[in-house]
């Protein structure tokens, strides 16, 4: 890696001001950023570690029933602490990477990165979550803007993510054999006012909502409800691990399985 300075502020305010420096970049769990640095694909002058900021960590239930997760909370903490409140989300977090990744990687880092094969984007979009930053609140529907692209501004920090807790939710992930990221994965969440279905891993535009399935599942929340539905292969990712047609097919299968797994 190229050399850089490193600061470890203890408050969001200090982190924000540190990020105001030229070529400064936030460091969450480093599970994406550090490999990038090692390959010399990024050249920040200052890394602003968020790991010393207590106000970015933790899982708590808000007065309106939403589950709020600090932007610096690790996947392992979400897996453990969200389980009683939002089991669908906890189980998604528990299936990310391996224990080392889960003990370091954070929800804020994952959502900021918005890898098209990542898990959390599906949960956030599928839950209609709100991405809370140091300056504003962004609805998930507005936040994800295509592969590795989000509504975040330079230097903006995800301080928390607020999830409305559904009646039931499930995540079905078909793993890419090498990376074990999602080759195609689907998150479904059933709310009083309807079902949301978010698909990750499949589309060249990153995570997306499958509205046709949402409608079908809103009137009948059962695996059979999506049996006849399919998404077009157009715009799906085609790579070494699966063609666009295969991914389109998996969207249907994984949706069915996510509904079956919902709790």
């Amino acid at each position, binding site marked *: *890696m190229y050399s850089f300075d490193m600061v470890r502020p203890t408050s969001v305010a200090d982190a924000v001001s540190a990020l105001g420096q030229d070529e400064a970049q936030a460091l969450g769990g480093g599970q994406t950023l550090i490999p990038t640095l090692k390959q010399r694909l990024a050249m920040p002058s200052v890394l602003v570690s968020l790991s010393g900021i207590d106000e970015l960590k933790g899982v708590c239930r808000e007065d309106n029933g939403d589950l709020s997760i600090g932007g610096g909370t690790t996947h392992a903490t979400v897996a453990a602490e969200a389980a009683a409140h939002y089991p669908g989300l906890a189980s998604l977090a528990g299936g990310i990477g391996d224990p080392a990744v889960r003990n370091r990687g954070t929800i804020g880092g994952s959502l900021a990165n918005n890898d098209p094969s990542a898990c959390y984007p599906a949960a956030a979009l599928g839950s209609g979550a709100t991405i809370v930053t140091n300056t504003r609140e962004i609805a998930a529907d507005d936040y994800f803007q295509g592969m590795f692209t989000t509504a975040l501004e330079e230097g903006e920090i995800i301080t928390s993510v607020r999830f409305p807790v559904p009646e039931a939710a499930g995540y079905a992930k078909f793993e890419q*054999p090498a990376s074990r990221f999602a080759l195609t994965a689907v998150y479904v969440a059933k709310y009083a006012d309807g079902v949301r279905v978010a698909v990750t891993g499949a589309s060249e535009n990153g995570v997306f909502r499958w509205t046709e399935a949402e409608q079908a599942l809103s009137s009948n929340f059962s695996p059979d409800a999506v049996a006849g539905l399919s998404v077009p292969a157009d715009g799906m990712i085609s790579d070494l691990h699966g063609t666009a047609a295969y991914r389109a097919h998996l969207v249907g299968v994984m949706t069915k399985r996510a509904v079956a797994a919902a709790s």
Partner: protein
Amino acid sequence: MPKDHGIGASQKRREDVRFLTGAGNYTDDINLHGQAYVYFLRSDMAHGKINKVDTEEASQMPGVVRIFTGADFEGIGGLPCGWQVTDKNGDPMKEPAHPVLAQGKVRHVGDPVAAVVADSLEEARTAAEAIELDIEELPAVVDMKAALADGATKVHDDLSDNLCYDWQFGTDTEATDKAFAEAAHVTTLELVNNRLVANPMEPRVAVGDYSRANDESTLYTTSQNPHVIRLLMGAFVLGIPEHKLRVVAPDVGGGFGTKIFHYAEEAFCTFAARQINRPVKWTSSRSEAFMSDAHGRDHVTKIELALDADNNFTAVRTDTYANMGAYLSTFSSSVPTWLHGTLMAGNYKTPAVQVNVKAVFTNTVPVDAYRGAGRPEATFQLERVIDKAARELGVDPIALRRQNFITQFPYETPVAVAYDTGDYEATMAKMEELMDIPGFPERRKASEAKGKLRGLGVNCFIEACGIAPSNLVGQLGARAGLYDAATVRVNATGSISVMVGAHSHGQGHETAFPQVVAEMLGIDESMVDIVHGDTSKIPFGMGTYGSRSIAVCGSAMVRATEKIINKAKKIAAHLLEAAETDIELKDGQFSVAGTDKSVAWGDVTLAAYVPHNYPLEDIEPGLEETAFYDPSNFTYPAGAYACEVELDPETGEVTIEKFVSADDFGNVINPMIVEGQVHGGIAQGIGQALLENCAYDENGQLLSASYMDYAMPRADDLPHMANYTVDHSCQTPCTHNPLGVKGCGEAGAIGSPPTVVNAVIDALQSGGHKVEHIDMPVSPSRVWAAMNG
């Protein structure tokens, strides 16, 4: 009661204490005073003409000691190939130059263009970014058949085309054609043996050192065969005589074949250390490993099997394209020929076997031996086509194999080798018993009740190990003998150091080899240590590959130990004032037959070194013996494997539910180590069958260049232990080596891929899918595509 010491005891591996506690001494742990670091600037193009490599600005960067380019290696030898293959027209194979750093052209992604030596690796890397490369991109040849087409771009401009050799072997064309013409049935299959990256846990490392005081070079390297590296690098590349060149391969974290070969980075570090008079270190990153370690396999084959009306195999004919990559790696030319063609008879008494191989240059990383080397490719095609034939003929695949087994030994195959011994019926029966074949229909029903398909795949294999009889391989084109050597040094108090030419990098030699010596002498294993991996300490050795260590080097060790026993008996006879012929050695005691007179091992060894009472007029003092052992034949381990898979028809995902291997390794020294070797081999075979895929795009860019895209097998890809049986109880001892051993290191990787693919095809067929073949890796997307194709 299982034995707890000596031959046959499952002793825990003594080397694991250091490996598991982080106390190993790997090449990267070696840091020499004043050492500099090298960073190789590698081509990101598959094929290009080098117009200019401008290092001027880079040379001024902080920390830079010196930058080398291909021009610095003009007049210095290139990396040699160790095996000469003769074309079917009688011409020698084409052998293009393989410079240490690219000269004139880059020929694959990863080809080193320049080497920056600096005080730190980061400085070297930063300076490398300042090198200005003017490389004109040329069209890349990637597909082998396209590489052979008229007018194809040439990988090497000085060669007439991209064909390295066109080799034919076995039964002549007339007899083969006749057998096919007369056949009652012919089954044909076209398949690919997928390219693999070996991925040992420890990447390659080299540290070159030079002492101006005595003009001596030392290379520390991650090698399976330090003497071979000394020979190749010293004699053919750098021109350093053996007595001025020491090669050390300390603890090595896995090789799987890819650490046999002599690599450019080794020659570079040795050369550069002399040039700058400082040690030079290189540690491969994982990304570099993907584009610079020799790859494995990569064959495209058409195989035909002819049968008579009674389903007897009458002929096999194969047509293979074997990818050599851009240059010939050390053993590359022998893999698709002598290590592959000679095994094409398999376990079967097929009278006509003809093998055709075209070796092709492409703009890809060189391909060479990888666990099994040639034999997995042979087994895969033969066992896949037999399975297909059984289905076409409506006969049981086990019965069809059984009916065609070789049953009389020794057996001369039509492909130049003579199997000394074996019992294929025994391993087949053992496999059937352990697999519970009669219970399969019930298990299939249970899977179907869950919405899954279940398939059963079986496979038999034979391999030629213990390489190799030097006179035979010499006739076949090997440029070296493949014997091995051992020195048994008995110390004054009776402890023993055995210097062996075999190198242990995960095989457990440090445990197994002492078990043999201890058994022969009747002493405790703790008195015996193995010394390996250092040309300055051991007499000679051709190293570890081809499941040869115990069969060849172990035999040398037995011969040397026999010499020790003979001499020790002479000393004992003197001490006991008895005739030498009356001396017996048992449990570490020399006694006079029929009397209670005896002396202990330690008394005899002490007398050898403190020869106060010693037959000095008859023998020299001291107790140290060396033996070289050249085998008279290959060894032929064989086995029968079976596996059951479950296939999810919705996703195409395949899981292995049950796996049985029944191997015949002849005698077994340490059953636990043998089982571990088979477990590891099967994991790699399952990796090849289901997961691993080294893929290039049409421009020669490596698509699977990291673990994000190259899928290694992990624990949960393998069957649960309760459904996983590794058996080696069928034993027909090798007839021509003193231990009766055959070797077990590669069996798992040879036997398992066809087993898995046969099971997948069986599962698909059971679901009504008329799928005859899926190329490896049989990934979910490929299975789904085949089902929906």
